[in-house]
């Protein structure tokens, strides 16, 4: 069965203290190739029928309504993963 993968990220307005703490850990361990970490989340939706463009669009609608608070977060990607 196919899955739809929804990636959610905090908007810049959100402080993301978790990402900040991870950035500091990178610095402590001498990883100076990176200077900003943002932590988002991934939701995997198993599709009951066929995965097509209309199911993907429906997933996007659901993601906007429920998965994110549009004031604080945005959907960074929605992809279909065939098994």
């Amino acid at each position: 069965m196919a899955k739809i993968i929804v990636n959610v990220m905090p908007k810049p307005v959100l402080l993301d203290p978790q990402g900040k703490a991870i950035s500091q850990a990178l610095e402590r361990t001498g990883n100076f190739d990176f200077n900003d970490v943002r932590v988002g989340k991934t939701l995997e939706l198993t599709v009951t029928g066929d995965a097509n463009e209309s199911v993907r669009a429906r997933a996007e609608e659901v993601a906007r309504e429920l998965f994110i608070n549009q004031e604080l977060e945005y959907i960074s990607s929605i992809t279909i993963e065939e098994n």
Partner: protein
Amino acid sequence: MRVGVVNFPGTLDNRDVIRALNIAELTPVEIWHQERNLEKIDALILPGGKSYGDYLRPGALAKTAPIMAAVIEKAKSGLPILGIGNGFQILLEAGLLAGGLAINHNQQFIRRDAEVIVANNNTAWTSRFDRDESIVLPTRNTHGAFTAEAKTLERIEAEGLVALRYENPIGKQSDIAGVSNAKGNVVGLMPHPEFAVEPGFGPDTKDRMRSGVDGLRFFTSLLLNN
């Protein structure tokens, strides 16, 4: 006056709200989240707690509860609705108030007796206060940092929708402690008025330990609206 108190799975402060309503000489009516009817209710309170375990985001899952369709409809028709703590988060998630509540800057639960200013006394829940009156209310939360995009914040300030401000906001967090909708019937508060209603059991004030009862007037404000 019958005031509905909505219980979601994980609501914690419902009994404290009921106690406050009794002290304010209002009639509390418990409402289960699976109900769909809000007839014969004159005002509504969404208490604090951790509805649905704060999964996804605080308030995000509660907005899908069966009762919420009626809550949204009643909010639009002008019924006084107060959300406290998690109840505030539910009202934000349901789109009845503008903005969002993010995790505290230190990612921790913060509990303190906060000095707050009543920035707007022209709402259903703040009419017993003077404008810019300084009061003390207990606050306790993990997701209490009011956050919104710049354009939303500008609109909230321009339309005078800030109901309460912290006198001493924590760290770099916003000073917004409560907001209302444009009509003033829907109000969300991060501090907890229901824990400041009875001498001896309230927050510390400058005068005496645990003597704070400023919270009571949020509830008795309802009686002024009629």
